Structures are given as C-alpha cells and as structure tokens.
C-alpha cells in the first residue's frame, strides 16, 4: 500500500469537506455531509479494489472496455440531457456519466494490450493502428453527445499511454503536425451543415477568448471567478470570509468553481498549495509506475494518473480563465457523487498495481 498516496487522498478529501461547508455559508448539511457519506462509501470501495489482485483487473480489462462502449451507445440513444449535452444515464436514483467509465476502460484495455504485445512490435504501424482504433471508438461516441471536451480528454489519455508504452516519437510528431489542420477543420465547419462541434460549444470558445463579450452569461462566470480568485491575494481573506462566494457572486461555487473559493479564502498560499498536492499525487504515481515490474500495472498507473491530471488541470485552467469552461469537476473536492466514486475507484486500481508491483508476469 502506498501510504503517502493514501494519506494525500484523504487529506485532500477532508479539505474538500471543509470547503463545502464554507461555500454553503456555514451549513454542514447541505453539501459537506452528503459528500462525506459518499467519500466513506468510496473509500471502502477503494480499499477493496486495492487488495484485489492486479491480475484480476487485468483479466477484466477487455470486458470493462466493451461494457463502457455499450453504455456509450445506450446513452446516445436513451441518454438524459444535463447541461446541454446527452451525457448522463439514470439508473434508478443514480445518475452517472459513462464517459468516465470509458476513460478507465480505455486505460485498462490499452494497458493489457501493451502488456500482451511484444515490445519490439510496439512501433509497427499495424500494431499502432489497433490502439488508435481503440481510442477512436469511445472518442467518436462521446463527441456527438455533444461533448468535444471529454472526447479530447479520452484521446489524450489514450495517447499518453501509447507514449508511455514506447511508441516511436515520430508518430507523435506526425500527430502534432496534423493537429492544427484538425483544429482548422473544426473551425471551418462552423456554420455549415457538417459542423463538427455544437453551436453552444463554439459559444463557449468565443466566451473563453473574450469574456467581456458575454458579461452576464458564460463570461460572467469567468469574470467573477477571476475577481474572486484575484481578490484572495497572497494570504487569502480567511476561512469563510470569501465575500464573493459568500454573497453569491460566484456561480457553481460548490462544483466547477470551488477552486475559486479556495483561492479567495486561502490566497496564493492555498491555491498553489493545493496544486502542489495534486502534483505530488501525480509524481507518486509516476514513481510507482517506474518501480512497477508488472507492465500492465505500470501502464495502468500512468494512464490513471494522466486521467487524474486532466481533471484538476482542466478545472483549474478554466477557473483561472486559461481555458474554456467545460464542466470538469475538481477531483476529490467538487461536490458530486459519481465523480468521487470514480476517482476513488481509480486510486484503488493504482494501489492495487502498487501493492502487486513486485509480481512480474512471466
């Protein structure tokens, strides 16, 4: 068991409870308590997953991946709208986003693929094509939801695993060269019948580029976020003293913008502190992957760490005005049951990989 990692996860989560108490203006029941309950459940889940043998997870990988794909197809036809996109699936009283499951599934599938594949074939074009296909399937199913953001992230995570697995640099160089062309294609498609991206998503990009244009709509969120963030200064205004959050000037303060409240109340020390804690988690994971003799385990760890990275990086970028708002929650802190469960689940897998790191598959 990677104790420091476990410790950090718990510490950050507890900090999360504290913040949820603050943004509820001193109300413990509103968000803090439900979040704690979910954390409790997720924590148990994480422990269970940790102690399950890594080979079991290896065995499950293809099934989990396929299951994820199936769910995506179901969502596409029977899914619920939430926030303007068909992302959610309701099962009884539980709502969850299959796209998260897909990230995990893809990571696991790619990990087992590269574990199975002889290392010398890794850069062979045929053996490169397969994983690319594996990446494209969920990506292609997510984008029309419409959810370009998540689609991009899925692809990014997949590509990172491919990179870690040793695929030749040149492939990535080539991909980078195509990227501007792809972007141009997306923007040219705007306004045409074969538009690749939803109107309101284009709107999101516009607002990101110029928040002043939409001061009362999406631009409002970013502007308010920056104001609240900036006014925190070096030391912050103090716990529960964040005027912007307390006075409702900040929207979604318990979910997407909770980092802003942290920055407002704890200042530069707080915001950078948290950022570094996340960073340390990533570093722990990478180091663990490097010492992991089990190929599947190490690739799994890297993939899941990347997934975790995308969460906090995208959220904080949006909140500071460096990227468009995409609804990505701040992991372990933002209010939200399914996200919490998924994240804790992934840490469970990472722990499992770590616990069984000395067991090399022969």
């Amino acid at each position: 068991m990677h104790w420091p990692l476990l410790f950090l996860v718990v510490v950050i989560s507890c900090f999360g409870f504290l913040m949820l108490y603050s943004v509820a203006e001193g109300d413990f029941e509103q968000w803090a308590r439900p979040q704690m309950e979910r954390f409790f459940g997720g924590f148990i889940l994480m422990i269970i997953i940790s102690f399950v043998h890594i080979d079991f997870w290896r065995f499950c990988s293809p099934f989990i991946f396929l299951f994820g794909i199936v769910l995506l197809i179901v969502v596409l036809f029977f899914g619920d709208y939430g926030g303007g996109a068909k992302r959610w699936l309701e099962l009884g009283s539980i709502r969850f986003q299959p796209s998260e499951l897909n990230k995990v599934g893809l990571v696991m599938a790619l990990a087992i693929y590269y574990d199975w594949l002889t290392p010398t074939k890794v850069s062979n074009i045929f053996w490169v094509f397969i994983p690319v296909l594996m990446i494209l399937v969920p990506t292609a199913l997510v984008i029309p939801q419409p959810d370009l953001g998540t689609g991009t992230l899925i692809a990014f995570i997949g590509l990172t695993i491919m990179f870690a697995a040793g695929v030749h640099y040149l492939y990535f160089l080539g991909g980078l060269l195509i990227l501007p062309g792809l972007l141009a294609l997306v923007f040219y498609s705007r306004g045409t019948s074969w538009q690749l991206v939803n109107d309101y998503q284009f709107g999101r990009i516009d607002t990101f580029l110029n928040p002043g244009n939409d001061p009362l709509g999406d631009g409002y969120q970013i502007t308010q976020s920056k104001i609240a963030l900036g006014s925190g200064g070096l030391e912050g205004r103090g716990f529960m003293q964040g005027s912007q959050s307390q006075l409702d000037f900040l929207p979604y303060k318990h979910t997407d913008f909770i980092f802003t409240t942290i920055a407002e109340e704890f200042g530069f020390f707080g915001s950078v502190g948290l950022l570094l804690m996340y960073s340390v988690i990533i570093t722990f994971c990478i180091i663990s992957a490097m010492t992991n003799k089990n190929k599947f385990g190490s690739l799994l760890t890297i993939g899941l760490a990347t997934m975790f990275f995308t969460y906090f990086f995208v959220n904080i970028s949006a909140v500071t005005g460096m990227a468009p708002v995409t609804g990505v929650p701040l992991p372990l802190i933002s209010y939200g049951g399914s996200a919490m469960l998924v994240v804790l689940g992934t840490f469970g897998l990472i722990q499992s990989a770590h616990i069984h790191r000395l067991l090399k598959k022969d």
Partner: protein
Amino acid sequence: MEKISFRKTLLDRNLGRRAVLLGVGQLVLVGFLIRQMRELQLQESEKYQLLAEENRIDIRILPPVRGVIFDEKGATLAGNLENYRLRIVQEKAKNPRKVVEDISRLITLKDERKSEILAEIAKRKSYSPVTIIENISWNDFIRITVNLPSLPGIVPEVAFKRFYAYKHFFAHVIGYVGEISRSDLKVISTGNPILQIPDFHIGKVGVEKGLDPLLRGSVGLSRHEVNAVGRVIRKLKEDPSLSGKDIHLTVDSKLQEFAMHRIEGFSAAVVVINLETEGISCLASSPSFDPNLFIEGMSQEDWDMLKNSENQPLANKAVSGNYPPGSTFKMVVAIAAIEAGLIETEELINCDGFLEVGERRFHCWNSSGHGDMDLIGGIRESCDVYYYNLALRVGIKRISDTAKKFGIGVLFPLPLSGVSKGLMPSKNWKLTQIREKWVPGDTLNSGIGQGFVLSTPLQIAVMTARLATGLEIKPTLVKAIDGKPINRNKKRALKIQDSTFSLVRNAMFNVVNDKKGTAYESRVVDKKKILAGKTGTSQIRLISESERKKGIRKNEDLPRSQRDHALFTGFAPFNKPKYSISVVVEHGGAGSLVAAPIARDIILFALSGSIPKITAYPIDQRDETDALLKRIKKAIHF
C-alpha cells in the same frame, strides 16, 4: 534470448525514461497554472480586490434637509414639507406593467398617468428609479408600504418639498428653489456629490439663492453590503447628511403682510429699516407672485403672464427698481451746500416758477413760483428753483460726494438677487459712459434728483436712516444663523456737523407737520409717533413746451404709463427715531397724494406692532382711514 532481453530491458528503460518525461511534462503544465495564479493573486490582486468591492458595496447618497428661513420673531417663511412619494425600479420590478396595475388598485392612478409611467420606465436605465406619484396622503403611503412584499420594485420614499407659507407676501425676499440649470453650476462645484441627487433643488432667486451655500447642507453616504441580486445584507458605515443652516431674517412678517396689503393694486415698493438694529424690517414689492407655483409647477400660460405682465410681478422693485429720487434728493444737496459753507439758513432765494440758464428754462413744479424761500422752506415746500440755484453753487462733485455718504449710488451687499447700485452721475461718468461733456443743466437736474440720478427704494430708505441718526447705517437682512446672532460692527458716525443734521431734520419735520408742508395731509397726531419726511415726484418724461401751453401740466392729465412716480421717505418718531421708510409708487403721480399716506400707515404699524390706532390720525381723516384699515384687517391672517 539475450538479444530479446537486452532489447526488453532497453525498452523497459524506455518506459522509465518516458515516464520521467511525462512527469516533467506534467510539472511544466502545473507551472503554467502557478504562473497564472501568480498573475491573478499576486500581481493583479489589488485590481481584483477593487472589483470584488465594487460588486458588493452599494453606496447611496443621503440628501440633506434644507435649512429653514424664519422672520425675526421665528415665523416660518420657507420650510420643508414632507412629500410622500412612490418610485419604481424596473430591474427589481420584473413586470412593471403588472406592478403599476396593482398599485392603481390601492391608490388612484389615472390611465394616462399609467402610460406615462410605463413610457418613462422604458426610456430610463433599468436601475434608475421612476417617480410614480408624489404628495400622496399618509394613509395612502401606509397602505402601499404594508403591501410592499407583493409590489416588487416599488420604493416608498419620504422626500421634502419646499413650502412658502406666506406665499406672495415674501416672494421677492425669499425667492424660490428649482432644479439645477447650467448657470447654477457656477456656484456649485461639479464634484459636489449633492449634484447626484435626482431632482435636487437649488436656490434660484432671492435669499434662497443668496444664502444657498448655507441653506443647502451637505450629503451623507450610506454604504450597504449587497449580494448578487442587490439585496441588502447589512449596513456598513453611514455618514449622516448635514442639514442646512436655519436662517433668521430681520424682516417682520406681520409688518410685511400689512405693507403688502396696503400697496395691493399698485405697482410699488416699500422699505422699512430698523434704525437700532440696522435690520430691514420690511421689503415689499407689488405686484407679487406665489413662489409655491415654482415648486408645484405652473402652466406655460401662467409663466408667460408672470414674465410679460406690464407691472413686472417677478421683479423686486425694492432693490432692483431704479427711479429718479426726485425731491427726496434735496436733503443731500442741502447738506452738501451747508457743509461747504455755501449757504446760510436765513438766506433767501426767489422762485418765480422757473430758472433760466443759458437758453433753457428749468421749471419749478409750482408754476406760479414760491416767492422768497429760505433753506427750510425750500425743503418744506419742495421748491425746485431754490435747489437749481443751490446745485449750481455747490457743483456736481460736492453733490456726488455727499450723496455717496448717504448711500446713493452705493451697492449694498445683501443676499438677494438683482440688487442695484443705482447711479450717482459725475462729470467723468458722463464722459466715459455717454461720451458727452457735462453741462450745467445736468447739475441743475441732479439738484432736484432728476437727470441721470437713479436710486432704489432701499437706497432712499438708507439715506433717510442716515439722516435721522447721523450714523452710517448699513442695511442687513440676516439676523441669525442657526440661532447664533450675527455680530454687528459698531455704527460709525458720519463726518457731518450735528448742527447740519439738526437743520435738515427740522426741515423734514416741517414737510409733514407744518401747514405749508407738502405732506401735511399725512401727518401723525399722536405726539409719541410724530412722522418727519420728504415727498418726491420723479418725472419720467419731459413735459414739452407745447404740452405746457395746452395746459397739460398735471400728472392726472397724462395717461398712466407716462405719469410721474410718486415717492415719499421719512422717519419716526421724530424725537427718538426708530424706523426709516421709503415708498415708491410707479406712475402714482404726486408723492404727497399717493406715497405719503401709504408710508404713514406702514410706519405707524411698525411703531405699534399692530394695526395703527385711529387716534394717531387727524380727526377729519379718521372715517376714511378707519374704513381702509378695517378692510386690511379682514384680509390679514394674524
């Protein structure tokens, strides 16, 4: 086998290397985030703190209460009446149309008014309040306030409205307030937050304007913390407003009301000065107007009527009216002559009805001539020829210097609008202003208070005040500010011999109390209230020779607008003077007939503080006077 394993370990090391690369890449990206954080929280922190403050702090201006204006005894001349009104703020009302409808169910609102309101709402910014209705009753106000939760966007307010209880009696002295115009910005700096109060009223005319800096007070500021929808969370620091200073004027409201009734129907002015306090007890100008019209609003026709009316109700004749003083000026000439040693009391000058100088004939009002006149007689019977002679002897310079000692041609700094300096001409003045040389005829005309000489009723009253007391009386209008009396400097004595004053005062006594005096008919019989004074009839146009031949000599023969102004100035009681008075009746004709009786009634009122007793009047005049006084008594409020 070895090859494979070597390759394998190589590739394994690759994993390690790539992992490191990924780790470093991640740190680099985190570095970008930290950089952004640094920019927002460290470098630009102040800017964001300011924006955060702007979000949450709502500053409201608290308008000050205007100072009250009282008369010398404390009667309220200009006060503040509570104005209950309702306003609506569109962005809080969500559906203004419905709210306006709901309101009209609770209080009466005409349909056209409703549409006006909605139109105004559409024009203005959504956070700018629009007045729905003003001056509603306390009951209506309560009814709305109680129903406020179901009337979103409605803001009930208690505002203050200026109210002039004495209406037209004090209109010219007090003046009125109104909305700020561009020219008003000269007296109030553009940075003054008081300008941000909607509908702020500033003094426009009269004391309201003259003492506006004292009366207006200064604003307060209330700071509230608000949330994102503008709801007040809590009150932060509040700086209360400072109400304006209350002013006590020297005027006596009862005397003023009596005087205004007495000159009703005339185009006239009356000034009464208290010789002990130097305060102006009465400053009346007729016709007048109701200043409350300027507060309530008046129709275009009413305004046109006020502006264009022949008798100029808007003008304060007492301080702005420039009239030739006529014979009331003769005392000045006499004093100039005596002080220069150019005339003896007993010296006789003959009056044949005219004096020829050069080719011109200068007429005396008495066409048959007064015969031989001495100094006292010249005043008593107001002989023009005597004074033509005297003027020639004295010369315009001495006359001018003496006149200035008595306030003629001098500007008195009173907090009123349109205070005129009058005009005391000189050789230099004529040369520079009219570009003509001074001729002897000008001196002659000046000698009888005609020609270029112009004075206001106030200046005439001051002149008489100085004559009566021998002191340099300076008229004042303000008695106290916020209850604290104004310090008066000790009155200086005029540098004129006592004997000269005695002589002139005696002469003025004779004007009223000697059978031959021009104002004998206006004498007072009560020994304790003897009146002394001087009549005047100032010509406004020359009666041509041809008209004289036709027999047109008297004012009654001329159409009114061409008749002379009637003047009278005096002081009482003769033995121990308490008040001086001047009365000017435009186009009134002879001063003795029209102005003197008015002056008598008013100064008697001043001396007793109430309607004069009939016993003060000569017996044969009592019936007539009684009828007049009874009429006024009915109209009076006190």
